[in-house]
């Protein structure tokens, strides 16, 4: 069952002179098992949008349905529906507080009042998934770890809740390139192997292009583009309106095209782009000869 947003609007500080409308009539359906990216400028409403997905914010207008259950409801049903959505905030390592890695990851499952052996199983599984060795890291204090490791602990803390949907708000912000590659690979794995429905917010067009099946570009509280990356990045006018730039590979290939090289522009990794250029040049030389 999907996540559905129906005509959602949200206003911050309603009824004061600081009133600010962050979402305007947003409708969006996120299908089960999909990998969706959300992008947009600072203040475009993307963080507000993702906070609606697990009931941290309730729409001023409209409704959010998870598997058909309205999240704003007061019933047990709504609480259970909210639990299906795991949420990883920006810089999640800042929310760590326990004395040991294992205890911090167990915080979520413990709140669900699961039996001890189930908690341990989940902590083990979550740590294994983010590639932190259970035996060597479980009793380490999280504050002695590196930034990338701390972030993995925090993500494991959310995975231990075993959500069906996972929302990540700029998961790679502030990580070094290696840690970033590693984390993105883990996220793709979650999607492919565990069949999790994933929604992630990112500023990095290259990451979006490589990973996502669908991109939602936000601008001024509205959805500007909602399409697969292969289409979205070629909507030049709209991209410009949202203040976004196409991924470097797409930008480069488009420029080459403008200058007369007949190259296909839909390459999202450096290798792919190189192959496209090589192909185009070979073709050109072939015709010239």
């Amino acid at each position, binding site marked *: 069952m999907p996540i559905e947003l129906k005509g959602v609007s949200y206003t911050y500080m309603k009824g004061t002179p600081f009133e600010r409308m962050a979402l305007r009539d947003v409708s969006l359906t996120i299908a089960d098992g999909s990998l969706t990216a959300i992008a947009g400028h600072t203040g475009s409403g993307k963080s507000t949008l993702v906070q609606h997905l697990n009931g941290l914010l309730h729409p001023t207008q409209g409704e959010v349905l998870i598997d058909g259950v309205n999240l704003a409801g007061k019933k047990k049903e709504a609480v259970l529906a909210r639990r299906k959505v795991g949420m990883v905030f920006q810089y*999640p390592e800042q929310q760590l*507080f326990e004395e040991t890695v294992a205890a911090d990851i167990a915080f979520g499952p413990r709140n*669900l009042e699961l039996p001890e052996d189930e908690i341990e199983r989940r902590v083990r599984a979550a740590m294994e998934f983010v590639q932190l060795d259970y035996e060597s890291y479980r009793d380490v204090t999280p504050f002695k770890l590196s930034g990338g490791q701390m972030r993995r602990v925090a993500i494991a803390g959310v995975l231990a809740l075993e959500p069906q949907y996972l929302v990540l708000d700029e998961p790679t912000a502030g990580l070094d390139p290696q840690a970033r590659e590693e984390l993105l690979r883990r996220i793709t794995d979650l999607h492919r192997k565990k069949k999790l429905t994933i929604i992630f917010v990112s500023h990095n067009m290259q990451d979006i292009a490589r990973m996502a099946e669908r991109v939602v570009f936000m601008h001024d509280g509205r959805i500007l583009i909602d399409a697969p990356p292969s289409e979205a990045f070629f909507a030049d006018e709209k991209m410009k309106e949202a203040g976004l730039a196409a991924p470097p590979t797409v930008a480069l290939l488009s420029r080459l095209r403008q200058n007369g090289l007949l190259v296909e522009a839909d390459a999202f990794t450096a290798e792919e782009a190189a192959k496209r250029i090589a192909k185009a040049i070979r073709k050109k030389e072939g015709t010239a000869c």
Partner: protein
Amino acid sequence: MLTDITIGQFFPGTSVLHRMDPRAKLLLLIVLMAAIFIFDTPGGYTALTGLALALIFLSGVPASMYFRSLRPLWWILAFTFLIHLCATPGEVFFRFWIFDMTKEGLSRGFFLCLRLTLLILFSSLLTFTTSPLSLTDGMERLLRPLKAVGVPAHELAMMMTIALRFVPTLIEETDTIVKAQQSRGADFSTGNVLKRVRHLVPILVPLFISSFRRADELATAMEARCYRGGEGRTRMKELHVGGVDYAAAGVTALLLAAMGAMKAAGV
């Protein structure tokens, strides 16, 4: 929601009150607060209430915001009123179980509540129309003469500026941490007192860690820009006492004289 707090908030604007010098506003606030306690006659309170209403109108800040600033005080006001209503000896006009409500109690309770309300309103007028930065600037200038007796005026003002500067940041951060822990199934609103206090640990630990980190970074940044305290420091925006301030002082003086006369006449 935490980010919806309005107490002590500044509302940018261009009204007469916004244009006044912070020092003048601070001094006049002190004078008016003293007046609330000195001129405790019906005539005096009528004049002060009128002044408060006029200033609220002049400030250009929506009146509903002033009501909001009174909201946390609502219980204290109700309690004060009831205690005075029932505990003041005098002519009984209503009897309920063991409580004797007296006419004297009614008027005393009313005046005390009015006094508290006026105190809050006048302070709100100051904070709503003065940015925290110019407020601390004003305080620094007012405290400067006390430097001779060893009061570190500049350092005090700098500490206040920094504290005020980080209030919104910390509120925002607390909000994020609360949400993050809520997303992990934390429950802050049920259970007895002991349980609720324990539930604060997942919020307080991350908050303290990040505050220490911020303090450290800020200290480094200030040192990197050669901050050495107030000695020989000049400012970009000098404070100016202008016509508006003299006019405000004049109006206040007139009002004080009128209230003094009313008190002497027993009105």
